[in-house]
Structures are given as structure tokens and as C-alpha cells.
């Protein structure tokens, strides 16, 4: 079937010609999505006609965009824009300022078995293009979190994913057991990479065996969808990612903050009370992009990206390197309405490109996987 069988105007043909439509129908995940620079702001109707395959299947000019994301085990998000743990509390703090029900999901503040008072202040400071934080997992403990917030969460359309931290495998398992079956808890995000606590925390994220065993132990304890958050503070994240995936995680989240410090204005001591903090914000985006790019190529489970998302272009970048969804974190502090706006902007972007789903934008910048050897290939081998 040739691409241009439909009746098209001369203008449509010109647009179509710029769009390299031939690869698309073969492998949407690896295909080349038309880049925005190649087709400057096409109108909705025109872009539908211009993409012969979609136009053939769906002649309707107004495209309904499906932004849903299936993270496995029944966790289907309405859209791929999540808010990151630690930046959005338990979902209630921003009150009427943010329409929580329009978020893809909320990852709540890191939750531990026992209450934690956290680190000595100062706990936050701004850095070029980012910020350092060393909250130290202050939280009231899993039981109090469930008592206080779970009922509210059940009333929301948005999924709430509880971020879980611990000092030992036993801690993680016990917290997850107490969350298992609680109405309002849609999933677990394992924080095995918090750089701001003395014991535990990071040690699970820097060793493939430890990461695999804590994931496996939690996997045995619950059927809830299980996300595991990777640390960027390692030489090579791939063996760790693979171990976590092999141990039964449903999703990888990449990445947690980068370890860093700041110096007090007096220059007599480090600025943060805890000395070390985690760097977040636009400053870390290239690092996070690299890790998502590396991980997405070697695991078969979905990757949710996090690191310095402040505008739609960042979302599109992360999708291009293989993320199925993104978390917005630090940018919320400056612009609490950003995540909801990104949902609208992503839908608009898809419509503008004549796409019925953002899934066509995923993985477009990844290297092509070598296809399965075909009989034809063998025939032609010299």
C-alpha cells in the first residue's frame, strides 16, 4: 500500500513530504515521530491528512488523545505527568491551588516504619539551576500516614503511590505489608536511594545484589504495583536496574537526587545542617536523561523519568529516551500549577502532530534495536 492513496490537496502533499511517513507503521515505538521543527504548527485537520496511516484509520479531524499509561498490575494512570515524592507532601498541602485529580499520580512523601524527625536545619538551599535538600525523611510513620491520609486518597481519581524508605530489608517489607490492601494506596515506590539519611537509604541503591534482594523481598510481600527509584550516585546504573527488574519490580523510576553540598555564607562550615544534600532541578536533567536513556534500553519494564522537568520540552525529551511517564518535582515549588498544565500541553502537542496517543513519542531517540534475524536476511548473506 502506498502512502498517498487518499485525496489530498497540493498543500497536504507538501506537508506529508516533509514528514517521512514510511517508517511509522512498522514499529511505532522505534519509529521516527515527526519532529516539531519539521512541521511548523500544522493545524489539526491538516496534520491528520498529512499522516497517511493515521488518516486512513481515523478520518475524524478532531483527534481524541489518549494519554493513559499502564504501569502494570492494574495501575493505569490517566496521564503520564506525576508529581515527585517529597515535593507534594501527601497531596493535600497545595489545597485549591492545584487540581490534584488532573495529575497522573501523586508520589507521596517518603514513609518509614517508625516516625522520623528528619535532619537538623537548614535543610534546603538554592543552587544554580537547582536546589539541595536534606530533609532526612521526616515523616510520621506508616501507620500515621495511613490513618491520616488514606481516606482522603480514596476519594481521588488520581492514583496515590506511597514512597517507602527504610534502613533494612525488614523495614521495607513491614511498611509495605502495612500498606498492602489499604484503600487509597494505588502503588509503592521504593526509595532505596535517599542520599540524606545515615543508615540504610542509599546503600541499597548502589549495589545490584542489595537492590535486587530488597526488591524481591518487597515483591513477595505485596501484589501492589511496585516502582523502584534508582540513584544516580553510582558509576554504572545498568546492573542495578537489571537486578531490580529481574527481582520483580513493575516500574523503574529514574532518578533520585544527586549527592552534593553547599558552603555557608560565612565559609566556616557547610551550609546544610546535614552537610550532604540531594541536588534536584534543571541542573540534573542531562544526568537523569542519560540514565533513563541507558536503562530504557536494557529493561523490559516501564521507566518513569524524573529530573528537572520544567516545561513540555523536558517531558518530550524524556519520552524520546524511552520513559513512559515523568515526575515533576522541584519545579512545583516555583510553579505549583505546572504539572496540570503539562498534561494539557502534552495533549495539545499530540493533537498538533495528529497523534492519538503520546505513546508514539516514546523511545524515538533510542538506538534502533537490531531486529530478529529473518530468513530473508540469511538468504542474502554473502
Amino acid at each position: 500500500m502506498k502512502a498517498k492513496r487518499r485525496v489530498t490537496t497540493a498543500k497536504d502533499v507538501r506537508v506529508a513530504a516533509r514528514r517521512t511517513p514510511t517508517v511509522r507503521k512498522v514499529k511505532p515505538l522505534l519509529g521516527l515521530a515527526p519532529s516539531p521543527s519539521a512541521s511548523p504548527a500544522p493545524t489539526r485537520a491538516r496534520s491528520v491528512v498529512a499522516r497517511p496511516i493515521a488518516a486512513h484509520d481515523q478520518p475524524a479531524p478532531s483527534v481524541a488523545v489518549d494519554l493513559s499509561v499502564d504501569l502494570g498490575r492494574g495501575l493505569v494512570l490517566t496521564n503520564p505527568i506525576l508529581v515527585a515524592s517529597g515535593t507534594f507532601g501527601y497531596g493535600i498541602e497545595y489545597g485549591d491551588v492545584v487540581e490534584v485529580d488532573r495529575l497522573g499520580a501523586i508520589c507521596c512523601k517518603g514513609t518509614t516504619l517508625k516516625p522520623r524527625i528528619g535532619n537538623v536545619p537548614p535543610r534546603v538551599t538554592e543552587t544554580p539551576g537547582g536546589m539541595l535538600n536534606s530533609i532526612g525523611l521526616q515523616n510520621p510513620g506508616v501507620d500515621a500516614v495511613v490513618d491520616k491520609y488514606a481516606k482522603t486518597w480514596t476519594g481521588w481519581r488520581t492514583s496515590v503511590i506511597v514512597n517507602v524508605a527504610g534502613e533494612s530489608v525488614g523495614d521495607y517489607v513491614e511498611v509495605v505489608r502495612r500498606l498492602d490492601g489499604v484503600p487509597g494506596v494505588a502503588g509503592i515506590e521504593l526509595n532505596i536511594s535517599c542520599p540524606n539519611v545515615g543508615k540504610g537509604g542509599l546503600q541499597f541503591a548502589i549495589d545490584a545484589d542489595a537492590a535486587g534482594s530488597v526488591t524481591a523481598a518487597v515483591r513477595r510481600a505485596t501484589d501492589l504495583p511496585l516502582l523502584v527509584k534508582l540513584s544516580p550516585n553510582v558509576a554504572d546504573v545498568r546492573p542495578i536496574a537489571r537486578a531490580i527488574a529481574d527481582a520483580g519490580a513493575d516500574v523503574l523510576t529514574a532518578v533520585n537526587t544527586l549527592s552534593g553540598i553547599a558552603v555557608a555564607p560565612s565559609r566556616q562550615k557547610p551550609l546544610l545542617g546535614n552537610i550532604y544534600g540531594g541536588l534536584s532541578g534543571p541542573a540534573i536533567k542531562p544526568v537523569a536523561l542519560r540514565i533513563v536513556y541507558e536503562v530504557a534500553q536494557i529493561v523490559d519494564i516501564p521507566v518513569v523519568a524524573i529530573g528537572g522537568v520544567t516545561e513540555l520540552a523536558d517531558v518530550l525529551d524524556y519520552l524520546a529516551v524511552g520513559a513512559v511517564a515523568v515526575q515533576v518535582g522541584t519545579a512545583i515549588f516555583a510553579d505549583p500549577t505546572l504539572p496540570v498544565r503539562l498534561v494539557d500541553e502534552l495533549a495539545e502537542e499530540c493533537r498538533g502532530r495528529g497523534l492519538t496517543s503520546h505513546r508514539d513519542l516514546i523511545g524515538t531517540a533510542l538506538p534502533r534495536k537490531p531486529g530478529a534475524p529473518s530468513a530473508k536476511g540469511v538468504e542474502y548473506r554473502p
Partner: protein
Amino acid sequence: MTMRLVRTELVDSREILPGQWLQSFHAPALASGTRAGQFVHVRTGDLSGLVLRRPFSINTADPVSGTITIHFRTIGRGTEWFTSLRAGDAVDMLGPLGRPFEVDSRSRHLLLVAGGLGMAGVRYLADEAIRDGRQVTLLFGAASARDVYPSSLLPDEVEYVIATDDGSVGHRGFVTELVPEYEAWADQAFACGPAPMLAALARLAAGRRDRLGVARLGRRRGAGRTVALGSPAARRKAFLQVSMEQNMGCAVGACLGCVIMGVGGAPQRVCREGPVFAAEEVAWDSGW
């Protein structure tokens, strides 16, 4: 009034003291319904690579003209960006945030104590108190005469007493040294300034409580009832309320960045439980 995101417009901007600016914004939604002690979280320009908003006490609020003012010192790129604003420029504010000063309805004499930029924290309370027919004495401490907040920017009714470190104007020494003269006169005290100043005031307040008791407040029906520490009712009964400062992230209670240590051993969020606290709520010696 619940917090909201408000698009404000700069009306006036002036450097009232070396490196200290007073800016006025048209923001009717914030100007009415804001109480003294509350603050706004203000977004900086996007071009500068700054990722956090800046918290500012609401220095004054005028519901009639629909304006609020903020008072700040230029200490970095964020505050310098604010000084580049011109009349008519739009600025995004989140507010009003935090809990206000709680004045007991029976208090006639209010003692305000401000150290340096701490003036911004208590300034609006002077307006509120005078509007409500109370007498206000404002003790102000600064390094030297050149840093002294101009009395012309205060209501005429305020008794303004100054201390400077170098004695170039007013009392030579710390502002806290002026407090004992006024402690018997004052029904309640409200302070904002550097943490050591507030800690010294808290010690003075505790001493006053030991000497004078709470006779003024303690003889009414129901006075024996205990009120929860940190509640508005408990704060209204406190002799000293302080407005605290801490590095801040979200300003709505989500990130837990801006905590101080409370007496019960639980961290208190400056943005949510504060920025105003009764002095007895704060664990001054915790090392936090």
C-alpha cells in the same frame, strides 16, 4: 483567607536604606484578608536559573488601594532580580501563607521588637494594633544609624525607640537591652529578627512569666482550661510571639524544608505552623 496564586503588579519600588528595598504591589486579593505576620511566596524571573520562590513577610497591606508592600535586603541574585522590576511589571505571588500574630482582645499595650530586616515581620502588626485602638511601642535594633528604619514610614502613633550596635543613634547596644523597661507596661510582645535576638527575648519572657505570673490573663472563667500548645487560643495567651525565619522550599507544608525544633521534640514547619510561634513553643536550646 485561603492561599491562592495571584498575579500582582509592581506599583512602586524604592531603596529606602542602603541595600534595603520597599516595594509595593497591586494585589487586591492579598491586600484584604491578610493578617499581620503572614507572608507571600514570590516567584522570581525565569531567565535567571533560580528555581525557588522567595518568601517575604507582608510588610503592610492596604485594602483600600489594594496594595501590599514587601521589605527586603539584596542578598543574592533573587533579591537583585526584584530590584530590577519596574512599575507595571507582573509578579506571581502565592499567599497569604502561614499563621498570623494573635493579639489578645484585652491587650492594650503592645511591645514590638524588631532587629534589622525583622522590621518587615512586625511592621504590619503596628498598623493593625493602632487601627484597633491599642498603644504600640516599637523597639528597633540595627548595626548603626545608616541602617535605621525611617520613622516616616511608621504610623505617627507608634512610639519608636532605637538601639544601635555602635551607638550612632539611640541606645548603644542590643535592642533586647531595652526590653526590661517595657515589660511591665506591655500586655504582649511580638518580635522578629535574628535567631539569637529572639532566643534572648524568649529568656526574658520566661523570666517575666516567673516574676509576674499570668495574673492579667488568668482570672477569668475558664482560664484554668488548658489549650493545645500552638493553637490560636494558646498563642493569644502567650506574652511573647516571635516570627521565625528558615530556608524555605514550597512554603505550603509539603517539602518539610523550613522546620525549626518544637518543645515537644517534633519539628515545626515555619511555613505552616509558623512563621509566628509563641515563644514557649520553640525549643531554643535544641541546637536546631
